[in-house]
């Protein structure tokens, strides 16, 4: 569905990607994680055709995004971190925009607005930043585009809204949709994404499904000093030591995305050895 091969991109002399390759399939919610400035937003913009690869190949749904073909654009919706909404009411916005997305579903859109508790008659400019973002997410989801790109979608959302966002997103995934969420707020996406891709210094640092991670790594609180010493990553807390262990016994357990992310950034080789 989305195939990126040997992508090179730089801002002036500062390289962002130097040979990045990625293959994203429908039916998944991908979490794109990485430090600030590692190119998460740049990758989304390359996929949506806003930036052009300087070398390499990008193919989205059989189209080259660079051409910004309307047949491609109507199948891709992007919710940027900073976005623009015109000074109109919700109905006028739909009248102006919905017709361009052939699979837009009005009842779905109303249901998302209700879930996000956005009043139907409100003008877009009267909304708070968080409400605007929820409105755009609702519209993007209701467009039912095969590719949905989201850049830091939970930025600016309050605690309740983050929870609503997770609920809405969980219900939106389908076999023919590929959702790519870029974020550094990993906690917000826990239990939502099913594949984690971490990029760093222009390359893929880690790329695994949540199922695979759970079967290979074990996240737990431990009081056993031997266990803590053997952990591939550990954090001391008042409750004991939070550790990541190699899951040799195949134990069922939860996934702490934030810990995993820190483990990969600080002890990449040990984490990757668990997947070999």
């Amino acid at each position, binding site marked *: 569905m989305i195939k990126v091969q040997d992508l090179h991109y730089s801002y002036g002399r500062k390289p962002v990607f130097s040979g990045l390759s990625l293959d994203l399939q429908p039916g998944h919610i991908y979490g794109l994680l990485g430090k600030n400035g590692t190119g998460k937003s740049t990758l989304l913009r390359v996929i949506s055709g*806003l930036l*052009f690869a300087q070398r390499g190949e990008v193919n989205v749904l059989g189209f080259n995004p660079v051409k*910004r073909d*309307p047949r491609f654009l109507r199948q891709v919706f*992007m919710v940027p971190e900073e976005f*623009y909404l015109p000074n*109109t009411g919700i109905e006028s916005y739909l009248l102006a925009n919905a017709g361009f997305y052939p699979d837009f579903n009005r009842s779905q859109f109303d249901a998302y607005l209700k879930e996000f508790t956005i009043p139907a008659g409100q003008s877009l400019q009267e909304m708070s930043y968080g409400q605007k973002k929820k409105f755009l997410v609702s519209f993007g989801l209701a467009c039912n585009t095969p590719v949905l790109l989201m850049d830091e979608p939970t930025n600016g959302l309050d605690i309740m809204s983050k929870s609503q966002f997770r609920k809405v997103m969980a219900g939106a995934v389908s076999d023919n949709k590929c959702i790519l969420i870029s974020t550094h707020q990993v906690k917000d996406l826990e239990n939502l994404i099913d594949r984690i891709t971490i990029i760093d210094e222009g390359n893929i640092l880690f790329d695994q499904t949540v199922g695979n991670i759970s079967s290979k790594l074990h996240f737990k609180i431990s009081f056993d000093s031997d266990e803590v010493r053997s952990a591939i990553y550990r954090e001391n807390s008042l409750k004991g030591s939070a550790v990541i262990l190699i899951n040799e016994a195949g134990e069922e357990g939860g996934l702490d995305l934030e810990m995993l992310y820190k483990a990969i950034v600080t002890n990449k080789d040990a984490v990757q050895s668990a997947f070999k």
Partner: protein
Amino acid sequence: MNAILSFQRLSGLIRKQWIENNRFYLAASLALFGLLSLAVIIFWILMNRSRFEEKDLYFIYLTGLFLAGTIFASMGFIHLGNKEKGMSWLTFPASHTEKLITVFFYHSVLFFLVYSACFLLVKWLVVAFVKNYYIAGSQDRFVPVNWNGELGTILPVMLIAFLAIQSLYLLGSLYFKQYSFIKTTLVMICLAGMYIFLVAKAYQVFFPDMGLQLGNNIELRRHHDPANFAIYQSYSLGPIVANTLELLLKWAWAPVFLLITWFRLGEKEI
């Protein structure tokens, strides 16, 4: 589905532009009407105390058309200078051709129609006022325009030039993120200056002893000698070449500028 131009998408895009910007367009139309009224009152009524020539109104019309038109055209792609608006606009499911036609329609065609309608309304009001109240019973007089005179020749050429200049300022608004009106004006002056300089230099180098005559055709003349001014040799373009050249010089600028804008849109990254 056509990837270049679909009339369904184009009409949808024109409707979207109206829905999202109608308040601005209506406010701009009112401002145009107000400014035109003010200009006509100051430069026509108050400064023409004895002879109210209708043709002067058309010179005010042309001056305003070029001034307001270029400012409005400079805002054609202003949204691309803003990251959020630009991203939303570029990823919107319509082709570059449709987006360009929409911007051209609002910032050139519709502007021209609205401006002209405002002018005709203002003209009708002030002419009626001047005829019936201002000069009634006095020695002052109103002189209607003679369309067979100078204005009848100038107006069509000026309207063609307006189309070309509008297209140039639209292109400028795509190239320059900020102050595109000023920057485009400066670039236009520099390019026009360079062009005139090069033509003058080329003329001096290649035809040092020939006189250039610009009439219905471009003609180069060599005279016997300074004392005998009769024509010794005369070179001019053939009628087909001359007519084609004239047509191109009149009409080609706007399509050329719009074509460059179209290519530039395709290259635009945000």
